[in-house]
């Protein structure tokens, strides 16, 4: 029997022109003593465990199950369902207040709950922490898979589309009191009809958006 012991990050060796991390794999033959250890270097990027867990994208079903589990954890620990875009509105308010503005009279922030959230600050806001976690987690996963790349902006049209699209999505999400997470995912998970209504119109919007995309971006 051959047992493989993987010492993650045990050893980093740099080749002449590339800096791929190597790690040490020590092969133990059954019942062998330390002298019989047969050590060899295996490129980490060729290792099965690395490929399966860090390199290749996980199946959609795995993602769906994990998202469902963690949104239950979110609801159980914070008392409110998972939301993403609501925190961005608060970030906007905090930035505005940092420059001396006040949102107290704004209808959106006028409720007691909204005021309490703003007064507690970003450090006591679970949604903000989670959003930072999403960004940091994405960065870590893409770095571990060595797929990080700063993409070039191809045309001015892309800039316009990104800005207009972002504004429309942000505005729409606040007017609808939720985005595809808070309103759709959270709504459906809470057995609320509003989640399904949101889904129908989001689908219609996606169809129209796709047609526009093909028309203006091809």
């Amino acid at each position, binding site marked *: 029997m051959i047992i493989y012991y993987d010492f993650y990050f045990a050893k980093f060796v740099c080749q002449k022109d590339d800096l791929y991390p190597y790690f040490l794999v020590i092969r133990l033959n059954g019942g062998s003593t330390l002298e019989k250890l047969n050590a060899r270097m295996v490129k980490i990027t060729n290792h099965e465990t690395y490929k399966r867990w860090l390199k290749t994208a996980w199946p959609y079903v795995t993602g769906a199950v994990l998202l469902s589990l963690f949104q239950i954890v979110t609801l159980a620990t914070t008392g409110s369902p998972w939301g993403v875009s609501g925190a961005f509105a608060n970030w906007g308010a905090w930035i505005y207040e940092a420059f001396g503005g006040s949102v107290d009279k704004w209808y959106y922030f006028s409720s007691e709950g909204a005021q309490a959230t703003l007064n507690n600050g970003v450090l006591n806001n679970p949604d903000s922490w989670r959003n930072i976690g999403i960004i940091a987690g994405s960065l870590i996963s*893409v770095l571990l898979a*060595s797929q*990080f790349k700063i*993409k070039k902006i*191809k045309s001015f049209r892309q800039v316009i589309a990104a800005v207009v699209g972002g504004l429309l999505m942000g505005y729409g999400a606040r007017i609808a009191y939720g985005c595809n997470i808070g309103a759709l995912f959270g709504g459906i998970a809470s057995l609320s009809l509003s989640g399904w209504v949101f889904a129908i119109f989001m689908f219609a919007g996606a169809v129209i958006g796709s047609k526009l995309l*093909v028309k203006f971006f091809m």
Partner: protein
Amino acid sequence: MKEVMLDCFGEACPIPLVKAEKKLKELDIGDILIVQIDHSCAMKNVPEWAMKEGHNVEVEEVNDGEWEVIIEKVK
């Protein structure tokens, strides 16, 4: 038999897929289309579409976050 490069660097989904579909239609049987992408979801949907259509497909990671989807048109 010719080889055609399709530069989709910097394009987000689903643009690489739509461009690849369009380009492959113009090609003859036996031609090879190489779609250059840097959007990881295109790495999934472009090969999936081409395989479903029955073409020969290979994905090569050419650089950090850059892939070439090599499609041989077979029908």
